[in-house]
């Protein structure tokens, strides 16, 4: 933390045109993930079916997963969530939104020597528990947090 503001990073990216590049690079990511696309899990309509398709059997609630998200979503269409796993040998981090029509919203495979820290955005139609599901040494662990989605207005 410093007192200096840091507009320079964006300024630099803008100047060099890297901002556009950084955005377009994101569009390649899903294709890279196609190899391990679990269609049954992403299409499942209940938590039980989702877990079944993922091979999850009664996951353990773990304090070693940090799930960072706002208490109230600023925009239900893009809710930033971050999961940091301190569980050794983490190989996968998934995000599930309990009250979405399809619960599994994102799944990331973590390679060896990769920091198990993932930030993404999920879409939420209503107030719901959001679950970070971590796979480590073949076992599953969770952390969850309620994120409120409200109609807005009427404040203060």
């Amino acid at each position, binding site marked *: *933390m*410093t*007192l200096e*503001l*840091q*507009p320079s*990073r*964006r300024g630099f990216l803008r100047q060099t045109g890297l901002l556009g590049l950084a955005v377009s690079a994101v569009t390649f990511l899903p294709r890279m993930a196609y190899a391990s696309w679990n269609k049954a899990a992403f299409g499942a309509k209940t938590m039980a079916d989702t877990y079944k398709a993922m091979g999850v059997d009664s996951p353990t609630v773990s304090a070693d997963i940090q799930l*960072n998200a*706002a*208490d*109230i*979503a*600023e*925009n239900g269409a893009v809710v*930033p969530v971050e999961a940091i796993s301190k569980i050794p040998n983490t190989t996968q981090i998934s995000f599930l939104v309990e009250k979405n029509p399809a619960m599994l919203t994102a799944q990331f495979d973590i390679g060896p020597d990769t920091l198990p820290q993932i930030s993404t955005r999920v879409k939420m139609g209503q*107030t719901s528990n959001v679950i970070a599901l971590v796979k480590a040494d073949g076992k599953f662990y969770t952390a969850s947090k309620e994120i*409120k989605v*409200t*109609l*807005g*207005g*009427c*404040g*203060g």
Partner: protein
Amino acid sequence: MNRREFLHLLSAASAAGLTLPLDPARAEKAAEALYDAPAFGNVSLLHITDCHAQLRPIYFREPNVNIGVGAMANRPPHLVGEAFLKHFKVEPGTRLAHAFTFLDFERYAALYGRVGGFAHLATLVKRLRATRPGALLLDGGDTWQGSGAAMWTKGQDMVDAAKLLGVEAMTLHWECTYGQDRVKEIADKDFAGHIDIVAQNIKTQDFGDPVFKPYVMRVVNGVKVAVVGQAFPYTPIANPRYMVADWTFGIQEDNMQKTVDAARADGAKVVVVLSHNGMDVDLKMASRVRGIDAILGGHTHDGVPAPSIVDNGGGKTLVTNAGSNAKFIGVLDFDVKDGKVSDFRYRLLPIFSNLLPADAEMEALIARTRAPFESKLNEKLAVSEGLLYRRGNFNGSFDQVILDALIAEKDAEIALSPGFRWGTTILPGEPITMENVLDQTAITYPYVTLTQMKGSQIKQILEDVCDNLFNADPYYQQGGDMVRVGGLAYSCDPTATAGNRIGDMELNGKPIDAEKTYKVAGWAPVSEAARDAGGEPIWDLVARNLRARKTIAAPKLNLPHLKNVDGNLGLAG
């Protein structure tokens, strides 16, 4: 200004018949008793918040309904009326009792006069600075919005007034409703070298970079004091998101801890948070973040005479809230010894305009900024037979006037009006001017809407807003009051869980049908689509209605039937 100069000014003003209806000797005595609080310690902070652009003295009635639920029940700030006086040991019938409570409001308002006004506030600030050299003046935000003149000048009148008053640092909420570009323009141009906007919890959407300084350091009598900013965490939710499209907010508790730690590492011996969280959120944050000496709070407009002292394992944190509408100034005196705070004194001083002569320079500035708008503001629309006020959890009599106008002018079955906590008070027999109407409605998204809504949708809206008010976890609250409802009867159990608080919804004695469609009028929509659709500004609709009615009988408040809150100390008459 020392005490003698002040008293001289007071008697001079009185002799000239300018400001004081009171007998001068009595006025001096009353002013001394209120404002000559002895200085204490070596670091003083003066705190104003939520003035909502009220530059001139006004009346402001405190609520008779301010219910706390769960752990928040029956403790500050959720105490009203006699329970409030008893808790804070304030003598009934006194000036202080009138300032802090709604009790016998009409009677005491006539006796003790108007409150607030920046010219009177400026006099008191000078007086406090005289006894507290180096005192820092901090503004908790909601300063640029709340009046017609502020809206028409895009906050410029308030920006100039804050600079003249000598504010050192401020944080934000309604300021943001002029749009992020306007806020940055003021921060970078008008405020440069004068006022720092501080907000550890406003970041850019893309990279999460800070938009403002998270804190500023000032040296007061040789002591390094850090002022950390906490803007209203739910600005993009409670107000239109498109106005701050590139910014993200939130409570950001982890970052608050990091900011406090950074300020301490930077040598701060005193760390205060200038907060727009709302008091319940501040109390929770104080219990979880370590290293904060005091949270100077606003947003919920609670005039709380004594700080709540919160233990957080790492020490103790004072939590204050300094009311609204420039009615109060908080004075926090710290004694800092051996590199840390060893003792404190706190006072929340009400600004009684007839005890504080107007500061000439500030008065001239106010007159100058108002001049182009005077004739519009002064238009008398109607005369009110009853007391008109807004503040309260469920409804206010001025809100009822707005609801009645919406139903009449839009030929609606039901009307909804936002549960804002700003808005001034009009005494019985006074005219309702255009300025009064704008004091209740002056926002940058004032469009009137008329919508066909299913019964189930209406229920969802009421439940949603009610959860923002009564969620048992303060971090899920937004700090406004309940949406005001016209035409529709309902019951409310504040102690129930989300989705289960609202019941018995009826229109003209018939139960609301979840599937049936009703004609609902409202205003202040937050969506971009509503902005693009436009619509008549609410103040024009209300003004039209009042002009036609000429005399406004005391409105009958549409209030919900409350459940499970009997005996709650946040509920009175």
